[in-house]
């Protein structure tokens, strides 16, 4: 039995639809990310699961039980907010104990379980502090400890790391992942950061305009994007506008690109399309190398970004970004150097043009 089932969940407002027919099935102990740009409906879905927003259609089942009409306080969930939402007038201990007390846990048992939860997030011994005496990262850990202490059926995260600075965020990602493994609670994690979603999740659900675009493993999402939106949202994409021509895409004012088997999805010739070619899928060729499809170009700009070097390459009237490994043969190309780029047709993702789709 799935730990969480969303069955054609829907939220319509007067002007727009925040979620339409969202169906998901999450297995026990799984870590699922809801990934999408802001306004894609991911937070709406999460808040409907929490019972903070009432759906206009569909059902929510937690451990097989229909909770669609159940108030938040009867759902046995844990929710970690972006703003932490700690109780500022209570000590860290009392914050974590709040949910346990509601379950009737008290005395030595209460202390043991609060201490356990604080140990889980490595905040041992800070129970007497007030929230405002803690750093942002520590406050976030208290929020996590508070939500896991009552052992909820499902743990929900609403962009929990976006208020932390970058280095702390990386560290918290790993810690949250490890904690989730240890505690084994089914987790739904909302984020707009693809790196966060990819690195932490068992499966990722990509949302756009309130519609599920793809629900699959991070590998599948990355290598086999189901829609043009997913292709252009995941990875570091070059986006082109063009038209279908000769089993490929004629980029407006630029070169022709081949498309892989099935990539055109039966789109007829001359159809206006959006094509995506990821920066990391463009390969620099050595002078003696050859490939199935080659673009000739000229280096326009070079940017060193640590583990890789990004080049802006002028190719037949347009510019695209290509990457090379810092320790590879193409790490030190000069401006205006002539280069040859290999493009695998399987890496060209094509989708019928949708002008409003700005990721």
């Amino acid at each position: 039995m799935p730990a969480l089932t969303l069955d054609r969940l829907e939220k319509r407002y007067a002007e727009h639809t925040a979620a339409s027919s969202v169906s998901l099935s999450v297995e026990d102990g799984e870590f699922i990310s809801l990934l999408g740009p802001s306004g894609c409906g991911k937070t709406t879905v999460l808040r409907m699961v929490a019972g903070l927003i009432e759906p206009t259609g569909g059902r929510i089942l937690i451990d097989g039980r229909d909770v669609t009409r159940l108030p938040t306080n009867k759902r046995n969930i844990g929710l970690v907010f972006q703003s932490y939402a700690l109780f500022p007038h209570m000590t860290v201990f009392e914050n974590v104990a709040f949910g346990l007390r509601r379950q009737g846990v008290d005395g030595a048992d209460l202390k043991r379980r609060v201490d356990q939860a604080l140990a889980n997030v490595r905040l041992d011994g800070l129970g007497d502090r007030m929230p405002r005496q803690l750093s942002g990262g520590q406050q976030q850990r208290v929020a996590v400890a508070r939500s896991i202490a009552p052992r909820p059926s499902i743990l929900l995260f609403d962009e929990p790391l976006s208020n932390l600075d970058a280095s702390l965020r990386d560290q918290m990602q790993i810690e949250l992942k490890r904690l989730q493994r240890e505690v084994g609670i089914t987790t739904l994690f909302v984020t707009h950061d693809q790196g966060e979603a990819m690195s932490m999740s068992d499966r990722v659900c990509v949302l756009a305009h309130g519609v599920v675009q793809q629900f699959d493993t991070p590998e599948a999402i990355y290598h086999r994007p189901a829609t043009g939106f997913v292709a252009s949202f995941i990875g570091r994409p070059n986006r082109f506008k063009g038209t279908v021509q000769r089993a490929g895409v004629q980029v407006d004012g630029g070169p022709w690109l081949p498309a892989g088997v099935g990539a055109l999805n039966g789109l007829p010739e001359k159809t206006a399309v959006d094509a995506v070619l990821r920066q990391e899928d463009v390969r620099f060729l050595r002078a003696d190398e050859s490939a199935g499809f080659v673009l000739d170009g000229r280096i326009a700009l070079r940017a060193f970004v640590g583990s890789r070097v990004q080049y802006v390459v002028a190719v037949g009237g347009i510019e695209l970004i290509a990457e090379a490994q810092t320790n590879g043969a193409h790490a030190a190309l000069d401006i205006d150097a002539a280069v040859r780029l290999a493009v695998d047709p399987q890496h060209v993702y094509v989708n019928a043009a949708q002008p409003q789709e700005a990721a």
Partner: protein
Amino acid sequence: MTAGTRTRLPGLVLVSPLLLILLFAFIAPALLMVPLSLREYVPGSGISANWTLANYTSIVTDEYFREVVVRTLVLGFGVTAICLLLGYPLAYFIAHSGPTMRLTLTMLVIFPMLLNLVVRSFGWIALLANRGLINNLLIDVGLIERPIRMMFNLFGLLVGMSHIFLPFMVLMLVPAIQAIPKDVQSAAYTLAASRLRVFWSITLPMSAPGILSGSILVFVLTISALVTPRMLGGPTYKVMATLIYDDFLQTLDWPAGAAMSFALTALTMLVIGVSSRLMKRWGGQA
């Protein structure tokens, strides 16, 4: 020059006009009253040249003065409590209503303050007097035979002053309740707290700053009010403020009036100090 003094200096310049006005128009006259309060008052001949502490000691020892002080405090705490009990639900409702409703209700709360204080107090006389609206109605209906005494006593003052100071309480509470992040209350719901529990454990303590400022404001306004106690208390049922007024302008016993003024100030500061301390501990800001 440290960063602290650099940032403080322009601030000092900004407040200095107000500071000067307060110094000459308020603090200096108040200090001039200190020696006055230590003079002896001889009935018939006025203020004598002798020094005495009697003006202060009599406030504690004299049964009449003691009664007035206790009455003032009971009135202060009573009106504050009534305003809090009546004002909090209203403020909670206003804070949680939509923008149009909020504006309408806020205007309604402010509206009575646009009427002159004397008029409002007089309105209560018309209602509460022995031959007033309420007594007449109750007698006509046959519920009572003799009018119930509702003026010139604590009841009248509690009713009248609660009405007059309620808007201040509500206006202080609304922003405090609005300032509570919705996420914090939602977090409590996700932790299986009932609505009542969320109110008692989260909303109420987190609105402590508003409760404190509203209560202090209403308390201070109540114990220093003159017009309403004068009108609804009459010449005999006195509070400290009316007593001071009479000392200065009727009996001309300035030393006693000055001493009573200082006692009132000291009481006010004591109550504010203690309540702030307690509130901060409760609201977690200690």
